[in-house]
């Protein structure tokens, strides 16, 4: 198969255009975060003429940004760990045992995708209120774990399916119990699956906005998306300088970790969908 030179050039032109379109909007955040308000109005899309750090200074000293950053980090870390702890045994059971209700269980997991946010948030509001978990980080973590769990279980089941049962059977003859064989034999072979689940729950918990908006009630408890939305909404005019600085900083951790983990997430996502 050959491709004419003209077509090859066109191929590269279109791909580069796509890339510009997908990556360039980020540049506005970067540029604006180093401009003064007047600088942004004077030149809405250029590189800053003179670099200023007032925006960063403002969000660090005059806003709750640092607290909200800590909240987001804590929520993400806890959600990732809890998701793995809850999903691993369930994924293992789905992969290794044929039990009654197995299909029902799988269907329920998949069906949770379709539950409307508004109904869930009304119900969860009542649940969290009962246990005094409204406006708390544990409340948010429990919610996010329940959101990431169905997919995590499904993904890990896929990974466990690929590990030969014979390995475990050999160990069991030597007197190794189910739990030990899961921890000692299956898990070390499923590291890519665990990384995929970790990346997925990280994205979900770091980026989620709607539920955090309803559950978290004051500045000290906001996660970063809620902080950004509130910061934008406060006062009449949107102050793009500090907002861009905060938004950019809110992206950096998740972007770096996503780039490290995306390989596993993508293969986990597509593994189940393609076979």
């Amino acid at each position, binding site marked *: 198969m050959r491709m004419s030179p003209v077509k090859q050039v066109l*191929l*590269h032109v279109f791909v580069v255009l796509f890339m510009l379109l997908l990556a360039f909007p980020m540049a*506005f955040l970067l540029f604006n975060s180093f401009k003064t308000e007047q600088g942004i109005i004077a030149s809405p899309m250029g590189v800053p003429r003179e670099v200023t750090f007032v925006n960063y200074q403002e969000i660090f000293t005059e806003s709750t940004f640092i607290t909200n950053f800590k909240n987001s980090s804590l929520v993400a870390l806890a959600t990732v760990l809890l998701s793995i702890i809850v999903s691993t*045994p369930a994924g293992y059971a789905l992969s290794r045992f044929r039990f009654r209700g197995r299909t029902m269980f799988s269907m329920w997991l998949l069906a949770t995708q379709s539950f409307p946010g508004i109904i869930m948030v009304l*119900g969860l509001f009542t649940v969290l209120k009962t246990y005094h978990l409204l406006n708390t980080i544990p409340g948010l973590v429990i919610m996010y774990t329940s959101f990431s769990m169905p997919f995590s279980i*499904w993904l890990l089941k896929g990974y466990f399916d690929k590990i030969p049962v014979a390995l475990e059977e050999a160990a069991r003859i030597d007197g190794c119990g189910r739990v030990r064989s899961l921890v000692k034999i299956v898990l070390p072979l499923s590291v890519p699956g665990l990384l995929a689940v970790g990346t997925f729950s990280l994205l979900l918990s770091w980026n989620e906005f709607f539920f955090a908006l309803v559950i978290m009630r004051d500045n000290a408890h906001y996660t970063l998306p809620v902080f*950004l939305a509130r910061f934008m909404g406060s006062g009449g005019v949107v102050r793009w300088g500090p*907002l861009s600085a905060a938004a950019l900083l809110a992206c950096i951790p998740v972007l770096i970790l996503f780039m490290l983990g995306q390989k596993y997430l993508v293969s986990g996502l597509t593994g189940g969908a393609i076979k």
Partner: protein
Amino acid sequence: MRSNDGALKEERLAFPFLVPALVVLCGISLYPLIQGITRMFYTYRALAQQTVFVGFQNVELLFQDPLFLRAFSNTLVWTITSVGMQFVLSYWLATMLNSRFLRFRRMFRGIALVPWALPPVVVSLMWRYIFLNGGPLNTILHSLGMAHPPNWLTDPHLALWTCIITNIWMGIPFVTVMILAGLQTINKDIVDAAAIDGASYIQTQVNIIVPSIKKVVLIILTLETIWTFNMFDIVFILTKGGPGNASLTLPLYAYENAFMYYQAGYGAAIGLLILLCLLVVVVFYIREVLR
């Protein structure tokens, strides 16, 4: 007898492994779902300051409420065009990224993933800036000779489409990666053989490519439909449903009722309608995944 015993034994083995997930599933998924749905049978009377049982009144009110009908039709437009355009553009991009004539393939694929990782709130405020009246897009349009570039966020005919464009942008990486993975499973020799036999571009697509990636395409389309129908962040940040109610969608309208107008019952009724719409879609999703 024996097989029955065996099955029971497997259940006894499986149960302890399932306990944590079952607890989460019942306590933080099933119970809130039921609890949330039952809210639609109640309404809050502000004067009496109490919540009273009203049966299906909230559901009946839905279909007499012009704002609800507006939000419903907006949501349909929003979902169908977003998912459709995401798919078309991503299919195009994925085909190009899959071409063996493309250089720097890995680098391009890496860049294409970036929007996927960004918080939707950040994506929305970024695009709100781009669409601003004196913002980058209008600056470009102006320099291209357009004397009066449109008011993307405040023109009632455009506001919803501005949100849709943002949503399409945000969804491209996920859809592209999934399609790309599907395309990569296709044996290139078969495509080459078809070309040697004189198959046209359309014939190759219809007879080889589409059947090979049908499953992944159906999964993407159903998932994206569900996610887009439920999407709250973009409209909330970009237009808050405005100007007027030009870009109001169902999730936003439900949120406003439940948390701004103290009408949780009405919000839940809107939620039930969303659920009914999505159940139809999720059935197709489950069927494809379990197949």
